[in-house]
């Protein structure tokens, strides 16, 4: 079983409500699902969709071809009907669309009427639709009813009841109308599965790493992270500050970090641009900070609600002057969770900025899991505080050590003073002008630290044939689609995937000789959601690696497994 459901319509019509309930329903029922969103930069209207892929087997990417299309308006129906499989079904309400369709597999379900009959208003059409879809799949409503009660928990009981009735009405109608429907859901062991998006996973990872201070300015697609963390403010003792702009956001976070707490900011490309001076400040002051950079298509405002991997080069080189940084690029919500934890660890241990590179596709996609394992988290406070600090004499913030790292004292916790400066400085943190101290500090910051940091970087994920003829290489949010594409290709070829989620510094070749794997393959493709092949360039510049070809997509849309398979086949 592997069904793709798409709910499409105008923003504000309830796409998210229907899709969200279904996603939760399937996850709770024990199915593997993958969801993703496609929406315009507007609050009402336009054409948008929420897509779910449901299976009894793990699914980690989207497909282009649809089994069930739910159309909430006529324009969206026109746009997306071409993606419907021949054997697929379309659900709509001819009354609200002011339009009837003659096709056999187009099911006209009177959402609004059924909603009204269930004692509800037009708005309950969403519950009718949700019930109808489940009816089509021959699934029962029990778990859905619980979900409906939860989502209306703050409303009166009667609203919950009418929504449940509406769902039942839709279900019944569909079951009746669709006697010949070939769609049936396989049964799965019904252990509820965890359902989480990339955004939430980063937020959760931060909270689970002892984050205490988050300052940011709203910007799609990073706002989800802020919302998640804000929701946990009181429970976890976190201050979330909406800054007046991104410059303030990063400088606040650096101030808080200096004062002794784990801090973070998040933004998208345009906001990140404004943060680059602050990034450089983190560099010279050696102040830990985690920055979530959620990419969207640029330049400038670009396509604000769509996806791209177009800011890698910028993240690698942002900020004036030379200083080390770490760039992590999770490929799934699970990776996002653990890598966010790793980001805090590296930032604090090496006193460097760590950038988590995500994008709209990962931010808005939901994956299912058995669960996350908190024993895999590493939280070691690297600060100098308490007794260790109090007993210290003559503390110097930038005392030169073999590793390049000087313990960070918490200011005010002892008589030791903590002096940091954006000018080049001496061991005490005071500004200097001489060449010798400059060399000392540059060596401390760059050449001493970098080798240690690099040791911590994990090898890329390897998946597929042990002797691959075809190697697909990618980074960040394409993890799922690459892996599924390799699965598909494996029927015919010796294929493998190399996926990098820790991308700077590049992993040491000793951990896994990815250069050799790429070199040996007869077809090696670097696959990126951008126009100029930024990761490919990084591998060439830093590791002398070259590919036989590449696949690049820069229309603001993510890769799909079927689409990518076609692209790869065209290059074999």
């Amino acid at each position, binding site marked *: 079983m592997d069904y793709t459901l798409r709910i499409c319509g105008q923003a504000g019509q309830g796409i998210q409500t229907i899709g969200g309930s279904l996603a939760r329903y399937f996850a709770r029922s024990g199915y593997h699902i993958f969801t993703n969103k496609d929406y315009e930069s507007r609050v009402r209207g336009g054409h948008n969709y929420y897509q779910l892929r449901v299976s009894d087997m793990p699914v980690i990417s989207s497909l282009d071809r649809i089994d069930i299309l739910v159309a909430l308006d006529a324009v969206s129906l026109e746009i997306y009907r071409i993606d419907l499989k021949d054997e697929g079904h379309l659900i709509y309400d001819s009354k609200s669309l002011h339009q009837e369709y003659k096709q056999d597999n187009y099911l006209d379900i009177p959402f609004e009427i059924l909603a009204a009959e269930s004692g509800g208003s037009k708005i309950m059409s969403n519950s009718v639709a949700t019930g109808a879809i489940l009816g089509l799949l021959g699934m029962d409503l029990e778990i859905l009813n619980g979900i409906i009660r939860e989502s209306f928990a703050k409303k009166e009981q009667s609203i919950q009841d009418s929504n449940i009735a509406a769902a039942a009405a839709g279900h019944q109608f569909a079951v009746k109308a669709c006697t010949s429907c070939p769609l049936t859901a396989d049964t799965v062991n019904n252990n509820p599965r965890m359902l989480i998006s990339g955004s939430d996973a980063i937020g959760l990872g931060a909270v689970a790493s002892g984050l205490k201070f988050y300052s940011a300015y709203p910007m799609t697609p990073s706002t989800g992270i802020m919302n998640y963390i804000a929701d946990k403010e009181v429970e976890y003792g976190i201050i979330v500050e909406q800054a*007046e*702009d991104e410059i303030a956001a990063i400088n606040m976070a650096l101030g808080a970090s200096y004062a002794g707490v784990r801090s973070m900011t998040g933004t998208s490309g345009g906001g990140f641009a404004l943060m680059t001076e602050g990034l450089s400040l983190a560099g010279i002051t050696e102040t830990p900070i985690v920055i979530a950079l959620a990419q969207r298509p640029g330049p400038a405002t670009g396509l604000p609600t769509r996806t791209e991997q177009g800011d890698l080069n910028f993240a690698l080189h942002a900020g004036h002057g030379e200083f080390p940084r770490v760039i992590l690029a999770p490929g799934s919500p699970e990776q996002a969770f653990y890598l966010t934890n790793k980001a805090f660890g590296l930032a604090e241990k090496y006193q460097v900025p760590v950038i988590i590179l995500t994008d709209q596709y990962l931010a808005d996609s939901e994956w299912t899991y058995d669960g996350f394992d908190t024993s895999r988290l590493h939280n070691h406070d690297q600060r100098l505080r308490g007794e260790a600090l109090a007993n210290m004499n003559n503390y110097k913030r930038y005392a030169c050590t073999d590793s390049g790292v000087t313990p960070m004292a918490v200011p*005010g916790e002892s008589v030791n*003073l903590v002096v940091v400066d954006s000018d080049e400085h001496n061991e005490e943190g005071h500004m200097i002008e001489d060449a010798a101290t400059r060399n000392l500090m540059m060596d401390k910051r760059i050449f001493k630290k970098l080798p240690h940091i690099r040791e911590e970087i994990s090898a890329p994920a390897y998946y597929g044939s042990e002797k691959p003829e075809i190697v697909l290489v990618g980074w960040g949010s394409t993890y799922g689609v690459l892996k599924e594409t390799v699965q598909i290709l494996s029927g015919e070829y010796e294929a493998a995937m190399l996926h990098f989620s820790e991308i700077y510094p590049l992993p040491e070749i000793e951990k896994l000789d990815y250069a050799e794997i790429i070199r040996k393959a007869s077809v090696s493709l670097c696959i990126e959601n951008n126009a100029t092949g930024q990761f490919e360039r990084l591998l060439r510049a830093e590791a002398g690696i070259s590919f036989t070809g590449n696949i690049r997509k820069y229309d603001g849309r993510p890769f799909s497994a079927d689409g990518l398979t076609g692209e790869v086949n065209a290059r074999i």
Partner: protein
Amino acid sequence: MMEGLFQLTVLREKSMPEFKDLKGIEPAWCPGCGNFGILKAFKDTLVQMNIEPHEFTAVSGIGQAAKFPHYIKCNTFNGLHGRALPAATGIRLANHKQRVMIFTGDGDCYGEGGNHLIHTIRRNINMSLFVHDNQIYGLTKGQASPTSAEGIHTKNQPLGVFSEQLNPMAMAIALDCSFVARSFSADPEHLTKTMKAAIEHNGFSLVDILQPCITFNKLNTYEWYKERVYYLENEYNPEDRVSAFARSLEWGDKIPLGIIYKNNRPALEDRNPVISELALVKQQFNGTLINKTLREFY
């Protein structure tokens, strides 16, 4: 897995700071610069208020004024040009049991950093902002600043400054800043008194300090200021916003010194429940909660 994260502090007995203990590195200011008066007054303030070097953090941007923290002994965050206020905000919110003072120039604070000033005033965090207002960009050698007099000529304004001079006092009052004062670097007594009042005020305080730049500002000299400054009369009521606004417009022949405006808006630290009991930096991270939070995703 979370052991050792965030230990508690060990306290020691307080000792009395003396003026000589507060000496930082050698100032790189021009001999005769108005900044020296501010340095002395601030050290006096610390001594009088019995604040030890480790008991506060001095935050600054970039400029002649912004070098200030290096010239006293203290915790120091000498950040970016224009960005002292957000850094200070982060520092104070992370540890609101520590005093935070900000030292910036007129260019730093009213020019590059203008947006942060607006919104830091709105937040009303209990910190003191001292603006060394020499009405010029000193460190970069004499360009006009937002408080430069209209019409002055500089190397990059050969036609004279066209923009109207910024009135930081009026602006702060319009933003309902909770403490707005002006002082003069060559009046150590008034300056020390004003600094003390600002630090003692529970809320965000802005002190604009008239500070002669003897090298680049040939208009607003010691004499120019001395001829014009006067103290607000004893009866003056700084809590009346409209009359404070009227008074803040005085500039030219007469320039008022003193607390021009103040109010009793509650400070942010006193309102955010997250830090109502303990400073953020002292709060232990409770890792055991996470498993409960994970359940929310099922």
